[in-house]
Structures are given as C-alpha cells and as structure tokens.
C-alpha cells in the first residue's frame, strides 16, 4: 500500500536510506542539470515527472516542480524489481512511495507536496539504500496540506473505526447466540424476529469479516454460491428453513442444533480474529466502497435474502458501515478534498432519506413489497454514491 505501510516498515526503510544521504555526491550530479530543471519548473504545463529506474541509475526528468499535486511516472528499466521514494528533507521520513515495480513496468506515484526540499530515491532490487537525488518543490500558490497533521487525523480515524468493528462483532456474537438458541429450540417465531436485526451487525462490517476467506462462506454462503459437494452452513441455511417455500422439507431438530452450534462457533472465531486485524486508511476507504458494491450487487437486486426478503435490513447495515468508515476518514479527507467530502455527505444523506421511506416499525418493508420504480430509485442513489465513494481511498491516502 503506497504511503500506508505500517509505521514500522517506514522507519526501517527510512533509516536504511538515511545512511546513503550522508555519502551521496548529489550536489555535483545535480548541478549539471539545474538550468534545465528550472526551465521546466517555470513552464505552466508540467506533466508527469518521468523517473527511469535502472539497476544502477535513477533518472528523474526534473529536479524542481511547483507545489500541488505531483505525478511521478516511475519506469523500471532495470532487470530487478524496484521501488521509488520521495523522502522529506531529512532524508528519513517517507513522504510517498511506490513499491513492487516489476521490470519494464511503469507505475504512477501521485502525491500532494508542499513547497520544500525533498529527496527522491530509487531502490532497484528493493534492498540497499537507494539511489538518491535532491528534489525541490517551489511554492506555486496552490495550497498543499501539511501532512504531519494529516497523518494524525488518519490515525485517529483508523482507531475509531477499529473500535467500531470491535463493538459490532461483540453485538454480533451476543445476537447470534440468542438467535441460535431460539432456532435450535424450534422457536421459529423468535428466530425469525431476530434474523434480520442480528445480521445487520455482520453486514456493517462485511468487508472485514470477508477478509477471512475460510469463515465468510461458512457463515454467509447463499445456496447459489455453493460448489458441488460443499456443506452448507451459516445464516442462509437457517434462513431457508425459517422462511420455507412450498414443498420445502424442514430440517430436523438435530440438524438445526448442529447448524446453530456451528454458527455460534464460527462467529466467535470471527470475533477473536478481528481483534488482531490491523486496519489502515486504505482498508477503511476500500471497505466503504466494497460495502456499497455489496448493496449494488446483492441487496438492491434482492438476491441476498431470497427467502426472508429482508434485504433492506442488510442494505441499511451496509450503508451504516460505509458511512461510519467515511465519517472516520472525513477530517482527513476534508484536508485533501473538501468538495469530495461534501459530495459524499450529500449522497449518503440522499440515499439514507430514500431508505427511510421504506422503514416499518423497527425494521423495513420486505424486498418483494417494493415496486420496480422504488427499486430503481434506490439503485440510482446507490450509483450516485458509489461513484464518488470509489474516490475516497485515493483522496485520503494520496
């Protein structure tokens, strides 16, 4: 994750790179092209700065650039995998980086850089101290955010979201136990009343839950998702039993009991695993987008809950989860792109307002009670939100 590796990685990389800074012969090398670089910097039409990384060289097409958004097009002309760094003046702090550039590949690094002195570095072979050069950003009048403060806001957002995930998984575990007990005991009425509301805790943190590739299918597979021979467990297995279609043969008490036990065990496993998940701003941003994708793919189409038709509960929960992630990142986003923050606020509100019109009691109307026009309206609002939401990650992480 460019710009978002864990602090530990950053420090190590920075420290290693720092060794070279003292011994580099940069001033001489730079002197020969200063004029040219200045001419470039004063031009109004700067495009991407071309970086060519070979096994022995790191050519940067300009040594000076105006402040604002900078794009480095980093091309690996060497034989080994390379990396490119923009370091702060101290040669220690990583301002931005792009990793894992295979031979022959060009990768863009886009960053917002305030005026100041920087160091660029290519790291062919991904080891050693990097091939460094000085780089200057001149004040162009375009405001660029101070990124120390920005990082603090990002970190706060990530901490808040981590707490949210913890809270939701705790509620999910408690609710699942209650549901499982009712279902196993054959209290269908109670189990049905708990089904949708309990699943909301799952749906709110779905991208995190789904990151455990083995648990997700055990807990949330729909019948249509199964491979031949795959054992079907989890919520939707119970759903089919609780909301039976004509001709459906109900599960026995023993089968219900087994499913209930498995459901609780898998949920507890999920809960314990989420404790050690390390979240980051890009995971929040991408998670928010994925939640909306979930809505667009499965909920607004009524495919998630084909027997219970409680898709709008899931819909609301996905939107909740996306909105929380967005809200947690909002202070950081406002620094980088306040227009996007405003747009997302408006789009979330519009979608929420429309969803609210389908609220009934503690829950919602069933999906099969919605008219085609109503579904289309929801779908248009999901698309309207999904498009700007897909820009959240890059806007914050950049």
């Amino acid at each position, binding site marked *: 994750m460019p710009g978002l590796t864990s602090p530990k990685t950053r420090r190590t990389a920075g420290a290693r790179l720092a060794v070279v800074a003292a011994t580099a012969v940069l001033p001489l090398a730079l002197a020969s092209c200063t004029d040219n670089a200045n001419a470039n910097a004063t*031009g109004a039409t700067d495009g991407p700065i071309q970086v060519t990384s070979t096994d022995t060289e790191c050519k940067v097409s300009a040594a000076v650039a105006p402040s*604002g958004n900078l794009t480095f097009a980093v091309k690996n002309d060497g034989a080994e995998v390379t990396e490119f760094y923009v370091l702060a003046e101290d040669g220690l702090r990583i301002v931005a980086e792009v990793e894992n550039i295979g031979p022959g*590949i060009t990768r863009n690094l886009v960053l917002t850089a305030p005026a100041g002195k920087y160091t660029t570095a290519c790291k062919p072979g991904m080891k050693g101290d990097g091939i460094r050069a000085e780089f200057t950003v001149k004040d162009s009048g*375009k405001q660029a955010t101070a990124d120390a403060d920005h990082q603090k806001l990002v970190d706060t957002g990530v901490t808040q979201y981590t707490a949210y995930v913890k809270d939701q998984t705790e509620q999910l575990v408690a609710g699942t136990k209650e549901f499982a007990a009712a279902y196993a005991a054959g209290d269908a009425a109670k189990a049905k009343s708990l089904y949708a509301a309990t699943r909301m805790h799952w749906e709110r943190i779905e991208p995190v839950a789904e990151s455990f590739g083995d648990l997700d299918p055990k807990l949330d597979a729909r019948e249509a998702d199964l491979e031949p021979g795959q054992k079907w467990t989890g919520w939707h297995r119970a759903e089919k039993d609780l909301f039976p279609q004509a001709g459906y043969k109900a599960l026995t008490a023993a089968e219900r009991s087994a499913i209930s036990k498995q459901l609780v065990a898998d949920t507890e496993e999920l809960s314990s695993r989420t404790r050690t998940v390390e979240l980051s701003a890009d995971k929040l941003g991408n998670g928010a987008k994925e939640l909306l994708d979930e809505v667009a793919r499965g909920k607004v189409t009524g495919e998630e809950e084909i027997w219970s038709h409680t898709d709008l509960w899931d819909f609301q929960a996905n939107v909740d989860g996306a909105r929380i992630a967005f809200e947690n990142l909002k202070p950081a986003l406002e620094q980088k792109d306040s227009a996007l923050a405003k747009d997302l606020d408006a789009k979330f509100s519009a979608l929420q307002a429309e969803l609210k019109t389908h609220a009934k009691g503690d829950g919602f109307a069933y999906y099969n009670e919605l008219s085609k026009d109503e579904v289309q309206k929801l779908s248009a609002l999901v698309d309207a939100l999904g498009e700007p939401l897909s820009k959240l990650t890059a806007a914050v992480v950049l």
Partner: protein
Amino acid sequence: MSGCPFGGGQQPPADAHSESSLASSETTDGVTRRLSRRGLLGLAGVGGAGAVAGIAAGLLGHDAIAAAAAPPAANDSVIPFFGDRQAGITTAAQDRLHMAAFDVTTEDRAALIELLKDWTAAAEAMTAGRTTGATGAVDGPYDAPPEDTGEALDLDAGRLTLTIGFGASLFEKDGKARFGLGGKRPDALIDLPHFPGDALEPARTGGDIVVQACADDPQVAVHAIRNLARIGFGKARVRWSQLGFGRTSSTSRAQQTPRNLFGFKDGTNNLKSEDAALLDEHVWAGAGSRAGEAWMAGGSYLVARRIRMHIEIWDRTSLREQEGLIGRTKGEGAPLSGGKEFTAPDFAIKGNDGEPLIGMDSHVRLAHPNQNDGVRMLRRGYNYTDGSDGLGHLDAGLFFIAFVKDPRTHYVPMQMTMAKQDVLALEYLKHTGSGLFAVPPGVRQGGYIGEGLFA
C-alpha cells in the same frame, strides 16, 4: 548515479513525455498503450502542451471545459467535435451505433449545466480519440479507480460522433417546468401521437436526454456511452440504451446503400450531406416563432423508433411478395417501375392487369416524398438484434433514426399513413420503442452542448 533527466538534460522535459517515448522503442507497458490512443494523436496536433495542460488543470480542479484541448489536426479517424452543427447528423453514417437515453435525476439547474459541461469535455476528448478525465485510464493514482474505463485504449477515434438531444420531459414533468426552462420547450418538440399498432414499452421509450454514439468500431461507441453514463451518476441515469450493429442508411453519395434485415437496400432515396439546400429545407431547424425556442436554430429533431421485424415470418414470404411490399427489386434495389437503384420511381406505369407496377400499398410509394407533400427526412438508422424473444425467434429489427426540421410536418403525417396503410408495417413490423428529441446546434470551443437553452 545521476539526477539529470535522461542523462544529459538536453530535451525539454515538458515534451519529453511523448516525444522521447515515441522516438525510442524502449517504452513499455503504460507508455506504449497510451500512445496509440493519446500519444499519437497528441503528436498529430492536440499537442503535448495542450494535453499536459489538461492534466495539470484537471488535477488542480479547474473547469473541465477550460482545460479542453485544441481541436485536433486532420486525421481520418477523427470527426471534429466543435462546429456550427453537431456531428453525427450529416456525417457519413458510421457502421455502428450505441444510443442511450438518460433520465435526469437531479432537479438542480446548476447540476444539469455542470453535467452538460462535463459531457461536452468528455465527448470532445473521446471523439478526438483521447481518454476521458485529466488522468485517463492508466495515468492516475494507483489507489484510485481510473477516470477512463480503458476499453478503447489502442483503438483510434473510429470516426466517433456524439450527438446530444433533449426530450420533452427535460422541459416539463407533470405539467411543471423543470430547471427554469419554462417557455423553452420548442413547439416542434411535441408529444408524439399514438400510431396505430404501436406497442411501445415504457422502458424503451422517452427520456430526458439522448446521446447518439456512432463509430466504425462498436467498442468505441460503447466506451463513449459507458463513460458518459459514469460521469452522469448522481445526476442522470440510463433509461434505455440500444446497440445497432450495422448502418441501414447512407448519408453521403460516397457510401454504398446498405441493407436492412429484410435483405433490401434501405435509404436509397435518403437525403445526403451533399444536398445542402435540401438539408436546410428538411433537416435543419429554424429559429421558430417564439423567442423561447430560438435556441434551436441550426439544430434538428431526432426521431428514434425501435422497430421489431418479424424476420422469421418475412423469410417465409415469396420473393414476389417481398418485392411487391417494398416496391423495389431485392438484388439491385431498382424501383419495380424499372431502371437502376437510383432511377426515380414511376408510380403511374401499369402492368398488363391494369395495376400499377409499384403497388398502391407498397412501402416505396407510401414513404415517397411525392405522397407526403414533398417532405423528406435524413435517415440514420441501424440494424439491431437484442438476443431472442424466448419463443425461438430473434429479437431483431431496425432501430430507426431520422433527423427532421419539424416532426409535425416531417414525421408524424408519413408515419400515420404508413401505420395505417403500409402492409409491410402492418404484418411484419412492431414499434416497441420511441423517442423524440430536440438536438441543439453545435458547440463552439469553450462552450457546452445546449448552452443556448440556458442563456
């Protein structure tokens, strides 16, 4: 170790991007792919400077219109976007169509104008063979979705034209004016009457804004509609869209007359781009009779009809009956009165049974200007197939498109006659979709589509 650009620092870096990339064959991956759609065109005239300015301005949040590049130099695959009139009307008909009608989901006038500006910028870029947005398909941040969807990389502009028109429902809904456009709906933008036999499906009919994308490559046309739809999310949603796989009309004498799915040449007698005086008389709209409709001067009206053909039944019809219904020979396309394809039909000449050689209820007779007060239209339709109908038949037919000066005089009377009398229409055709749109005049550089409507 060297910090110098390209070793010596002799090249002007701003241009180094495209020039050095082209000059050396060492470029790979992203750079090479960019060249086919962007770089080459850039060198042809859009210019490194212009394109790069667009990138810089876009990233810094400048007005997309202001950042639009200069018009491209001559290139066979590029139809100029800017002009007094919109392209895609008299432009020699391209091979493929993707048309989409949008419903505007906002009621905010400023948002609508912004949408039209964004569409104008994207349309200009795509018709010039460039990608959309400031950073295109592969030049943006690695953690952001690319601005351009990318499926037209490596393809040239494909003679893409994007023609935009406004439906009646953009101006008013439920009797109330929208977007402050009260009094701006042109009188000619009528609600089309019900024609006998119409089986219009609401999901294929109407729409606030239509975009006609025509190109010689279907991928280019679809790419254009897809990217405009994407830009529109939150302001407009696709109401219906239609692919056309082959043109059924020629709009230039340089083009051969194509065939429709009945197997007959279609549009032999079509208006052609060379007929300047006739175009003024029949295609280009005037300033109207009220100040509120003057914005349409130099525009035209687009009639779209999705006409399902019962091709399976048609195929069981004798050649005699097929030619009799059309009024032309199937091979040459000559009128049954004799001659060659472009020979004028003689509706009076009779056979030994005393009946006219060109039947009274034949398509050629009913559609001929002589039978319709001399009115003509510029047809620009496409053959389509949309899968099958579930009953073992192809859902295939003609997506009829015509541009006319005024549908009240140039479309409705003829269609009413044909719907009532044309045996072809009665037995083999079914109209399943319909739309009428006011197509404003063209865009000048720095302007946006439909600007006159909001003046």
